């Protein structure tokens, strides 16, 4: 399925079924088994958005990818989950999957996601250009973001101190 980051379409080194793919994504309830299998393939996990991220706490340094599902675009739990995983120190790939929209892409990047995996139907309806434009629609954020934006509050302070 199409994979996008802030630069546009990317090849996906992970797959849920193809054993020849570089990395594998397993369901949440198959995670223990995959990590114990002794394989050298990078392991990612599909995290349903009703699972508290603390349940991944003991695996974070062994995970190459966490994919958080957006079952409906109006269901924003994934934004909190992403931020919480980053706050817990997770540094691997963070992917949003499901019904996410370009209109939410900037929020996803700000919350700590690196990429979105969408369906062919979404990709056909929502051209790459819309995803590429989304992170640039706003110059500023009032809060610090996980993708490195400094809050307006802090930038005002910096401007005052520079003056």
């Amino acid at each position, binding site marked *: 399925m199409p994979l996008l980051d802030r630069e546009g379409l990317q090849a996906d080194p992970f797959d849920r079924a193809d054993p020849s793919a570089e990395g594998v994504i397993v369901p949440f309830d198959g995670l223990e088994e995959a990590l114990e299998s002794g394989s050298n393939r990078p392991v990612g996990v599909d995290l349903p958005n009703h699972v*508290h991220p603390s349940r991944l706490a003991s695996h974070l340094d062994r995970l190459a990818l966490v994919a958080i599902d957006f079952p409906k*675009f*109006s*269901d*924003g*739990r994934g*934004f*909190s*989950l992403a*931020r*919480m995983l980053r*706050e817990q120190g997770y540094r691997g790939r963070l992917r949003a999957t499901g019904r996410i*929209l370009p*209109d*939410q892409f*900037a*929020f*996803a990047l*700000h*919350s700590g996601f690196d990429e979105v995996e969408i369906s062919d139907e979404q990709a056909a*309806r*929502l*051209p790459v250009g*819309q995803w590429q*434009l989304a992170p640039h*629609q*706003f*110059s*500023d*954020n*009032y*809060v*610090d*973001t996980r993708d490195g934006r400094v809050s*307006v*509050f*802090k*930038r*005002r*302070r910096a401007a*005052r101190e520079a003056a």
Partner: protein
Amino acid sequence: MYRYDEFDERLVRERIAQFREMVRRRIDGSLTEEEFTLLRQMNGLYLQLHAYMLRVAIPYGTLSGRQMRQLALIADRYDRGYGHFTTRQNIQYNWPRLRDVPDMLELLADVEMQCIQTSGNCIRNVTADHFAGVAADEIEDPRPTAELIRQWSTLHPEFSFLPRKFKIAVTGSAVDRAAVAVHDIGLRIVADAKGRIGYRVTVGGGLGRTPMIGKPVREFLPREELLPYLEAILRVYNLEGRRDNKYKARVKILVHELGTEAFVARVEEEYARIDRGAVEVDAAEVARIAAYFAPPAFEALPARSEAFEKAARDPDFARFARTNLFPHKAPGYTALTVSLKPIGAPPGDATSDQMRVLADLAERFSADELRVTHVQNIVLPHVRLDDVPEVWAALVEAGLATANSGLVTDIISCPGMDYCKLATARSIPIAQEISRRFADPERERAIGPLGIKISGCINACGHHHVGAIGILGLDKAGVENYQITLGGEPGDLASLGERLGPGIDADEVPAAIERIVDVYLALRTDEAETFIDTVRRVGLDPFKPALQPQEPVRAAA
């Protein structure tokens, strides 16, 4: 008043560009109707019964003369020459065309206004006491706090797709005029024993189909911890609030189902994990925002005004002065309420001409400031007593001098079935008819303070649960049917009204309300006992017969 800096200004302009693009993408099929609906709502645009409706944010209800004049211009150019002020201190235009909306947004941005998050499942316009900066019992002006929350919550990456809408209100006074107990989060500014300023935080209040009073979660939250603590509450709600049923999705249901103690434990657990430094705003920035709300330079005036007392010989002026003035902390000044409830008119509407009159009066007599109240009136907050006669004369001329603030005809009403897609009954015509029944100003004065609040459906936009008399319009097998509740109060002794009995037909409502008021007049101990006090003392039983059609029983006054 707060003024946009370059950051605020750019964000609002970029939001409009995004909105234009969004409309284009709906038209070219990129966005489905369902997707576009939620996204446009986050920009204040609804599709109502007959047309689109645009809800403009008036943060904490404060605006300048220039802003009010621009609202009038928009009403003339894109609506039918009027606007409707709402219980969330906003204004709604009921007749815009979709293709005009981006241009309306540009006109708003020209005067530092916008529609961001006036709808949608996100943090809504933050409301505050409409007598902020006026009331003598104020610990601190609540508006800098509200403005800080406005900025923090604007396009918040984590909290823009919550289970449901989220409303925050702030009060800085001992007397709560912002109804904080019936908000998702209520903030009351308090001082601790050492004089440090902080907040008493309640969560889970709300009206709607399941009315609830907010539960205290922190008795004293130090000022600097406000935003991180709000993030902890919002995060628990975002993750755990119900998404399976929109009627059970507000945070009040989560607090209720978990129990307050368990909810607080979860919030505190999350709060302990949150990186506060990333969220806290430094004291200098808080002070920068607060400086915009510094009081105007009040003249040193005597507490009494000769011009005022002379004018008070006119009984009409005297009546107005008695009902529509609120004591000001500065001697020789008053806060003047302009009623948008003339007898028999739809509550909360103002014509563009009236808006321009209000803009002029604000500029000439009230330090260029206006307030919108959650009771759907307008306040001129800083008027010299010496100037009240002249202001009053101008209001009389504009049809804005109704002397009924806080009285029985100062009715709150939602738009109801005349405009709203959700409504199950009309509410404006009911308000109009009740208003006509109590048109006699002397009778109204004799009745004293009494809040009637009307909602045209169970969603309770007219706040009927907290009306001393609440009226809820429902649909019963295709016929409008109205339930009457008594004993609600939004403020310090917040309470929810109780149902008086079975619902009644629309044409019976005004007479029933009249009989309820007559029962009160007959039962009150004296004029000092208000309607709500009498209801609390005697209970509902003596009022129950009033629902039955009968000849009104006049009080032996």
